[in-house]
């Protein structure tokens, strides 16, 4: 945990020192390009790597009655046996995190007896985090598009509708920090989860907190020259990079942490973004018995028909007086 925290703090310090000592072009232009390339390349590589692994049989997690006799009601989503059911299950999984919704907590009470509770907090905060992050990601497109499309302005209007402070407070900023805080706190304060948490569980959380925190710091407190930032970001996306004067250090910390996140993404657990679509326990219909599944790596079968056998041993068989399908004369006539 502390290693991850120290690593993220160190990254922030590197960016801050770099911005202060003349490496602004490296941090603001070179690293983002490199990070985007690593992200896309790494992402595709991971997906292709997964796609090369055969999934010879159906291994869906079943959470309901399998399709059986007509008078037994099947669970169409929890044990899907049609493509539609599987697609529906995947949609619910990807958009609403249905497996997390089923999360339970187990506890040993006096007796002793084991008690299972429904535990929805993880689901709630995970959903909150992902949608806030998506919203924040989309909002950032105001720096990459000119003119800014109306849809983005509308999103910002709704997100900042509480009109608290100047620049207006975005609800998603507050919620994403709260959600990340919860996801971190459950690793720290639940003994069971703490026991299984590794540095690569904490690092993404701290990195995201650093990224979001530096963004909030930049927008509400440090206040960088946003017009200059847009010149830089538009330069990046039009393949015409420029480094305008007078952008504050907060921006370089923010974009450096973003570059780190992008470059780290394909090689970390964050790849569940692509991996969720390739989960064989979710994306396969439960039709193990209804459909014949052939193992794709089986070697071609070598077999010999009886006719071939008889062709080889006909004369010996006839000599021994065994019955044959075709006699030697018939075989000779057929040739």
């Amino acid at each position: 945990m502390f290693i991850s925290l120290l690593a993220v703090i160190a990254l922030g310090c590197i960016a801050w020192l770099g911005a202060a000592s003349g490496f602004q072009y490296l941090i603001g232009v070179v690293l983002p390009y490199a990070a985007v390339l690593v992200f896309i390349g790494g992402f595709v590589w991971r997906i292709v790597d997964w796609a090369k692994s055969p999934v010879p049989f159906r291994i869906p997690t079943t959470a309901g009655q399998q399709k059986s006799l007509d008078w037994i009601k099947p669970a169409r989503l929890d044990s899907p046996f049609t493509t539609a059911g599987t697609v529906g299950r995947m949609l619910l999984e990807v958009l609403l995190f249905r497996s997390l919704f089923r999360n339970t907590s187990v506890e040993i009470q006096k007796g002793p007896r084991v008690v299972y509770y429904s535990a929805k907090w993880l689901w709630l905060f995970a959903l909150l985090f992902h949608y806030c992050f998506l919203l924040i990601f989309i909002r950032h497109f105001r720096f990459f598009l000119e003119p800014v499309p109306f849809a983005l302005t509308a999103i910002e209007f709704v997100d900042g509708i509480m009109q608290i402070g100047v620049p207006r407070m975005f609800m998603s900023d507050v919620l994403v920090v709260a959600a990340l805080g919860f996801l971190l706190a459950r690793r720290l304060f639940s003994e069971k989860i703490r026991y299984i948490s590794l540095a690569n569980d904490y690092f993404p959380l701290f990195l995201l907190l650093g990224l979001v925190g530096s963004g909030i710091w930049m927008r509400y407190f440090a206040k960088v020259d946003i017009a200059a930032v847009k010149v830089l970001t538009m330069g990046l996306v039009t393949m015409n990079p420029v480094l305008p004067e007078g952008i504050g250090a907060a921006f370089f910390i923010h974009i450096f942490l973003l570059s780190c996140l992008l470059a780290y993404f394909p090689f970390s657990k964050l790849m569940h973004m692509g991996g969720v679509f390739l989960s064989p326990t979710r994306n396969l219909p439960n039709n193990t018995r209804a459909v014949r599944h052939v193992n794709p790596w089986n070697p071609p079968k070598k077999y010999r028909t009886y006719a071939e056998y008889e062709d080889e041993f006909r004369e010996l068989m006839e000599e021994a007086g065994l019955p044959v399908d075709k006699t030697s004369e018939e075989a000779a006539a057929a040739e």
Partner: protein
Amino acid sequence: MYNGKYIIPGIVIFVGLFTFPFWSNLLTPKYERPQLAMPADQKECIEPAEYMRAEHMHILDVWRDQALREGKRAYVASNGKVWDISLQNTCMKCHANKADFCDKCHNSNSVSPYCWDCHVAPRGNQ
């Protein structure tokens, strides 16, 4: 590769979406920092330009509270000069054109302040 007929389109869609800012800007002319119409007869704002650039929204917010909620109408600038706290009479005296001053940066960076919900937007000499 297995299930390529699903996975390859998926990868193409993902890469397409992710690189959206790059290809959607292929035909965009070079982006320039918005050029603001500066007041002709004044050289200095109430505070230095860098400070105004970063903090003007904060100043306006504080001014709004001070003028309307506390009734204080005097602002002492960092160089000791005293200004009347008023958007209409102080700011807009020099920055008389919303479209060529405020809106340039705000539109380009998708900022929509709600000053003009109450105030009358200045239109210069039109």
